[in-house]
């Protein structure tokens, strides 16, 4: 029988199910546990935390997750790969090591720390040397928002993770690694795939894409036949069983809930897809039109046929910058004529803002229960709704104007249209907006490092 390597996905974002990592290592045999903590906005949150406290700036949940899987790592040799390091992988590693020491297993972990993705300290140097960090969507140079930048991280690939594993790490902590590299790297390490084995690297990336959102490929958030998906309360998170030739099977532990089928995997494959012919990663350009899926038994889908093309000479950079303020408030209006009352409240509120001379870069009203998510496509069903939530938000560079807006919602309870409730939360909070600036940078300017703790 051909050797397979089992990589389990245990976390699809920071805030995912706390029990999932432990369930993945206890539910059956796995070789690697992959934990994805970083979304685009996460790095800027972590950067702010680090500015307040130099020992912070990583995904704190990861320390608890490591505690829950420590016996599996220590006794059964399960290896952990996580981008939990955020903007401070060294502090993350120190916290994990401190946890292991406190748990009486000071020698259980050999932690590999991957750094080099953080470009924040180097932005001026980059701009001065002709790296404009143009916005990929608008074409503007970063200089337009330079003074408001709070985080800048290059998306890095599998190579430093592979190096850490080769140097004996059983826990690899990275900063802004791509989500997909966390799965591809252990397969590449185990099977010795080279840096130009494009088809195999692409297969590893697509395996990563399938399991990077946790249960979203194993029955969670699955529209297809959703009523009949078994026992979501006990949902099994996904596992990739990879083979040396780049083919793999997606499955989950026996006896768990959820479902792994061609429809559940296909829904995840198309999730957040751009041009399917060129899914660009630091390691390889994967072609989603090459993917073949085959039913391989209950809760098993075999994936094969994947092709990839050479990687580009660029890395994507995720830059976060401050971009004004926003606030969103809501009230609930009840039958009869719930929608009409909510519409009346909207007119009253807007007239009051007008009278104060308050205008905003953006003001948006939605009627939840009638048209908030599908707009006019929802038709007239909302006219008879038992209740409708009036939801209104504003966005502006001027914090004071946004602050004033937040005071105008709750008064409507007594001085606006009737049958209103749902105001227990009081005034909405003003939130500072951290916007996202996608850019590219030459690979040659980013040097990753691996340090063993």
């Amino acid at each position, binding site marked *: 029988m051909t050797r397979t390597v089992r990589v389990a996905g245990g976390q699809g974002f920071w805030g995912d199910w706390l029990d999932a990592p432990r369930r993945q290592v206890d539910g059956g045999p796995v070789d690697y546990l992959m934990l994805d903590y970083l979304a685009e906005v996460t790095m800027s949150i972590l950067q702010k935390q680090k500015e307040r406290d130099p020992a912070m700036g990583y995904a704190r949940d990861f320390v608890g997750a490591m505690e829950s899987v420590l016996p599996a790592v220590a006794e059964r040799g399960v290896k952990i790969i996580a981008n939990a390091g955020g903007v401070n992988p060294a502090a993350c590693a120190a916290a994990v090591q401190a946890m292991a020491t406190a748990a009486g297993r000071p020698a259980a972990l050999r932690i590999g720390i991957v750094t080099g993705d953080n470009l924040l300290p180097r932005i001026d140097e980059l701009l001065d040397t002709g790296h404009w960090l143009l916005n990929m969507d608008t074409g503007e140079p970063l200089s337009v928002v330079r003074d408001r930048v709070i985080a800048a991280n290059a998306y890095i690939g599998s190579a430093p993770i592979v190096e850490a594993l080769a140097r004996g790490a059983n826990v690899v902590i990275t900063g802004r690694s791509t989500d997909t590299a966390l799965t591809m790297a252990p397969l590449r390490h185990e099977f010795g795939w080279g840096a130009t084995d494009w088809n195999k690297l692409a297969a590893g990336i697509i395996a990563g894409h399938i399991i990077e959102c946790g249960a979203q490929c194993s029955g969670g958030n699955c529209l297809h036949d959703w009523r009949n998906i078994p026992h979501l309360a006990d949902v099994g998170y996904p596992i990739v069983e990879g083979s040396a030739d780049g083919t793999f099977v997606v499955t989950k532990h026996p006896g768990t809930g959820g479902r792994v089928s061609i429809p559940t995997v296909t829904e995840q494959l198309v999730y957040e897809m751009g*041009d*399917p012919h060129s899914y660009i990663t630091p390691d390889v350009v994967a072609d989603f*039109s090459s993917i073949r899926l085959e039913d391989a038994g209950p809760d098993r889908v075999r994936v094969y046929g994947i092709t990839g093309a050479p990687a580009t000479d660029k890395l994507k950079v995720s830059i976060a910058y401050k971009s004004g303020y926003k606030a969103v408030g809501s009230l609930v209006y009840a039958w009869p004529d719930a929608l009409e009352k909510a519409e009346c409240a909207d007119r009253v509120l807007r007239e009051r803002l007008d009278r104060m001379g308050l205008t905003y870069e953006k003001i948006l009203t939605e009627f939840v229960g009638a048209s908030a998510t599908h707009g006019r496509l929802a038709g007239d069903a909302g006219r008879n709704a038992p209740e409708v939530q009036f939801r209104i938000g504003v966005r502006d560079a001027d914090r004071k104007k946004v602050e004033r807006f937040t005071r105008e919602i709750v008064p409507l309870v007594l001085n606006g249209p009737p049958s209103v409730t749902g105001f227990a939360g009081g005034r909405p909070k003003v939130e500072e907006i951290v916007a996202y600036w996608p850019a590219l940078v030459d690979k040659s300017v980013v040097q990753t490092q691996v340090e063993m703790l």
Partner: protein
Amino acid sequence: MRVRLLDIAHARSGDKGDTANVGVIALKPAWYPVLVKHLTRDRVAAHFDGLIEGGVDRYELPNLGALNFLLHGALDGGGTLSLKTDAQGKVYSTAMLRLVLDVSDDEARAAGLPIAT
């Protein structure tokens, strides 16, 4: 004949900046060519007219029996900027499935399509 997209496909959507992507997947392999022929870029652009600010792109994935649509300017700036309930485009998928296709009787019969009443 009128064929509801909801009856012949499932879908998932997500975001990339201010663009929402909607993957539409045929419920049966025989229905994928119906999607290719009738669920055109223009048809989808008309469906979302007034709801999105930019254009629509379409990509074909015969290997998955799926079409991928990009709806540009769909998310009020996207991510953290957006004031929308669906700031990340998670339910554009089902908004897409509200679409009703006009398919000829012969074609509908040949593909075994469920007909909307």
